[in-house]
């Protein structure tokens, strides 16, 4: 009696394995995002690209928050250094080169991440959060006051590089092609980070989250793993900074201020930590709500008040975030 329904449902299960469902879903979402700039008006194209960039920043922070169990309030530093690194490459080298900008941005972010990782990984929990916050403020003060190099309060303005494949291809970015470029970088980062988080390295990070003392007792050098995690996270945050600089053609000190880190954490919590894709959803949710509120109530409306209320309500009643229900499934 009991075996009959089991055997009936078995073939269904084997027909669509978890992997197949996951990649089909991935392809569907990708298709939608690829087609989107062809159907959306100009404003919403840029809006979508921006969501992807913020999503990449939030995703990079998820490595620490969701997988290693360390809440970073310092991602604005990595984001900002990526931005200013790209700015340096675009201003110094002429003609501006996209790949050089990415290289410089990653270099800047890696430098900041090494500095922050070395000191702050000695601490845990809230101490880690506070020290990353204060480190990001160090970078903010330096960037804000070093007017000769960084432009201080005014920031830096530069022109957008062409999209080039050396010796083969050279074209200007349009809104749509920039969107596709950003999409490919974000999707590539997602696939790569998902692979890393499912690798033995990622498993060690997750075991640090679950029980740090036991991980140490088994013999893993926990500090070294944490440093690598912070650096990995910082690199991808820097990449987001480069993309933002390329899209908006400016670098500003306000992005290094810790409110950017706060937004990053909000995206994570709203979307669902430990899912990688959740933070992107969170960023989209946040930006859409913000857009909606300022459309309904006008530009002067303090949209952060209702968003803050929603955020707190979500922490109390939905601490897993929007995609929290799928967390186990997404990581399988």
């Amino acid at each position, binding site marked *: 009696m009991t075996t009959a329904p089991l055997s009936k449902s078995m073939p269904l299960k084997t027909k669509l394995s978890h992997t197949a469902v996951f990649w089909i879903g991935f392809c569907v979402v990708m298709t939608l995002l690829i087609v989107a700039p062809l159907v959306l008006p100009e404003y919403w194209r840029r809006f979508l690209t921006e969501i992807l960039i913020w999503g990449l920043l939030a995703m990079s922070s998820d490595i620490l928050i969701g997988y290693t169990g360390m*809440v970073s*309030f310092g991602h604005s530093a990595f984001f900002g250094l990526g931005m200013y690194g790209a700015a340096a490459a675009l201003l110094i080298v002429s003609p501006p080169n996209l790949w050089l900008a990415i290289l410089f941005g990653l270099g800047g972010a890696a430098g900041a991440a090494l500095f922050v990782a070395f*000191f*702050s990984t*000695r*601490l845990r*929990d*809230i*101490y880690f*959060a*506070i*020290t990353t*916050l*204060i*480190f990001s*403020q*160090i970078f903010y*003060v*330096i960037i*804000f*006051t070093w007017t000769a190099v960084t432009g201080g309060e005014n920031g830096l303005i530069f022109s957008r590089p062409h999209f080039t494949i050396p010796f083969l291809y050279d074209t200007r970015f349009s809104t749509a092609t920039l969107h596709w470029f950003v999409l490919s970088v974000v999707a590539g980062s997602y696939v790569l980070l998902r692979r890393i988080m499912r690798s033995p390295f990622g498993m060690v990070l997750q075991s640090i989250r679950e029980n740090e003392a036991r991980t140490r007792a088994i013999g893993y050098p926990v500090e070294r793993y944490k440093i690598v995690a912070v650096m990995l996270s910082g690199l991808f945050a820097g990449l987001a900074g480069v993309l933002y600089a390329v899209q908006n053609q400016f670098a500003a000190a306000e992005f290094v201020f*810790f409110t950017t880190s*706060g937004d990053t*954490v*909000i995206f994570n*919590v709203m979307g669902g930590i430990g899912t990688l894709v959740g933070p992107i959803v969170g960023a989209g949710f946040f930006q859409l709500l913000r857009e909606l509120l300022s459309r309904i109530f006008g530009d002067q409306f*303090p949209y*952060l*008040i209702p*968003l*803050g*209320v929603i*955020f*707190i309500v979500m*922490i*109390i009643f939905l*601490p897993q975030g929007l995609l929290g229900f799928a967390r186990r499934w997404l990581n399988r």
Partner: protein
Amino acid sequence: MDAVAHFFQSIPVDLLIIQTVNGVVAGMILALVASGLTLIFGIMDVVNFAHGELFMLGAYVGVLVLTATGSFWIALVMSALIVALLGAAIQIVTLRPLLGRDPLNTILATFGLSLILQNYALWQFGPVARKIGEPITSHFNLFYLTYPWYRILIAVLSAAIIGGFWLFLKYGKYGVWIRATTQDRVMAQAMGIPVPMVHTAVFAIGAAMAAASGVLFAPLVGVNHTMGLDWVLKAFIVVVIGGMGNLGGSIAAAIFVSLLEAYAAIWVDPSQAVIVSFVVLILTLLFRPTGLFVPTPK
């Protein structure tokens, strides 16, 4: 050697003394802010990100009461009371449901709160800074400066508030409740102490201290909606340097850090002098991760 001797000769003694006074004054206000923060952390493991916003709201309420009544001292007391009530309400609505969860949740919740309060202030009061006059306008001569007595009064009042609070913790019945809850929440509950009430009261007291320092500080630079950000960062630095939840340590650290920043401001721009406190923080984390000052027995 000659260069070193020359360097020491070039230090202006009068400027050093002026900056010492400035540093102590700033340090006492910071101590008042930080002691509320460290108290809230020590008793309920809540890192209150919204503390700077309570400071800022305190200053705004002070401005409003001052324009309504004309008395600075009524404004000081009223602001502390009103913000204490607000703090109690905030604690009941947002932090009480999070009791027993990971302390990181409280950072996030209070961060959300700080967003709400800061944007509320911007929305309600506008971006232009409000100026209020000092309640005491007399000055005394400090070398070539005429130094306002009011600044000295701030330091004395801050010290008095902290001292009064310390006496309350030490000898007051409810102060004993607070210390008991800090030591062992479960045991305190078993002894009949209403722990949830104590938590709310402590948050209210911390909020009142932040508000009082906001009102005291308001005449120096004016009131605007972002003034809390600087203070909460400084208070975090001080609280980590002094050792989380260690009241004496954070007061000592507040004065120490403020003095260092004041001295640094002799040579560099004041906005860069902040980096000195960052460096102190890094050194502390490297060599004394539990805080620079020996934890006092609770």
